[in-house]
């Protein structure tokens, strides 16, 4: 009898164990299912991205092809018109090139394979060069550009070319959305206790609050109906945000519809990114994401 009781209690114990195992298995299956859903979602996002990239690349290519064929089929076209069409082909080719470069650039930034150079640099000097580079564009659009720079600015450690990329992007965006007459851009540099802050403000059409995060998404261009479709790639802001985040800073916009927009970014003065070697930088990026 004892033997039977013993066996019975053993069976009960086993069945308890089994129950526990089966519960653990169910939990593991649920986790796997959730992970699988997340992977599917990522895969869908990737597909969407590829489909969007394809669409965006086809657009300039459509103009290039159409105008090339028109020119090819019409050797008698008047010179002025011919020159106009050729200049469109050139511009659209440049846009296509820019897009391809930016798509590659963004994918490098996102996969963590971007190359970063590090140097101690003077943000005032970076701003001055960005302003000089865009001065022709600013003049052409009749925009008044003002600088508000403090006397003394502590140096930051960052990648000069990458910061220049951010500055050029913000300035050319500001110019693009300035009113056709009376456009005004103010670039301010401020020294905060633990960071530098750069503001690029314009008196353009502004951005509705609902779109403030949208514009940092890939290929999202806002304000199409007000300003006509911008000839951009829709990748400038997402790339700029990635770069600023890499240095431990933030990039954001303050704006209301009809009241202009101010894009601001910070660069930490004593960021770990400023000190570490490349491996250290990568770990900073992981924290940022």
């Amino acid at each position: 009898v004892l033997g039977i009781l013993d066996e019975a209690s053993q069976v009960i114990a086993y069945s308890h164990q089994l129950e526990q195992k089966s519960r653990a298995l169910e939990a593991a299956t649920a986790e796997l299912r959730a992970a699988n859903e997340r992977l599917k979602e990522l895969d869908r996002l990737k597909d969407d991205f590829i489909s969007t990239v394809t669409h965006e690349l086809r657009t300039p290519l459509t103009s290039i092809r159409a105008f090339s064929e028109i020119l090819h089929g019409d050797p008698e076209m008047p010179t002025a018109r011919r020159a106009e069409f050729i200049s469109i082909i050139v511009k659209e080719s440049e846009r296509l090139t820019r897009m391809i470069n930016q798509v590659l650039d963004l994918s490098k930034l996102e996969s963590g394979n971007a190359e970063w150079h590090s140097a101690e640099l003077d943000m005032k000097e970076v701003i001055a060069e960005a302003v000089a580079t865009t001065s022709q564009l600013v003049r052409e659009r009749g925009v008044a550009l003002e600088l508000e720079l403090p006397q003394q600015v502590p140096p930051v450690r960052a990648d000069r070319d990458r910061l220049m990329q951010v500055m050029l992007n913000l300035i050319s965006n500001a110019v693009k959305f300035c009113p056709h007459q009376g456009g005004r851009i103010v670039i301010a540099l401020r020294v905060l206790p633990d960071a530098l802050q750069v503001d690029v403000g314009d008196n353009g059409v502004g951005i509705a609050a609902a779109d403030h995060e949208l514009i940092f998404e890939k290929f999202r261009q806002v304000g199409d109906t007000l300003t006509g479709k911008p000839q951009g790639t829709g990748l400038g802001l997402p790339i700029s945000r990635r770069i600023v985040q890499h240095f431990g800073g933030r990039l954001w916009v303050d704006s209301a519809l009809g009241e202009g927009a101010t894009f601001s970014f910070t660069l930490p003065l004593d960021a770990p990114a400023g000190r570490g070697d490349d491996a250290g930088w990568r770990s900073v990026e992981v924290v940022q994401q």
Partner: protein
Amino acid sequence: MSKTILIADDEPNIVISLEYLLQREGYHVLVARDGQEALDTIALMPPDLVLLDVMLPRLSGFEVCQKLRADPACKGMRVLMLTAKGREVEVSKGIALGADAYVTKPFSTKDLLQKIREQLGEDAG
């Protein structure tokens, strides 16, 4: 009398190229930069054919096509959809919504003109 074609596209350079191409072929050309403008223009001056881009601001090409097909006043109007998304789903969606033909961007200008002539019943000439 020359036939009228409405170009509904928001890419300025694509509009310039299509406008030139169609005028060279002797068509009367109208232009709309978004879906709503396309409907407004059609209500004022109904064209014989609409070159309708899918990705239009305000009202998409699909929505415009649907509205046109629901409107008895636009019964004979031909709709040729243009899309930069080469996906099969896009094509079948356009056709299901009542588009008469479909052209993928970038298009061959020769093929596009050929399709337009077919739709307008001019290919015999």
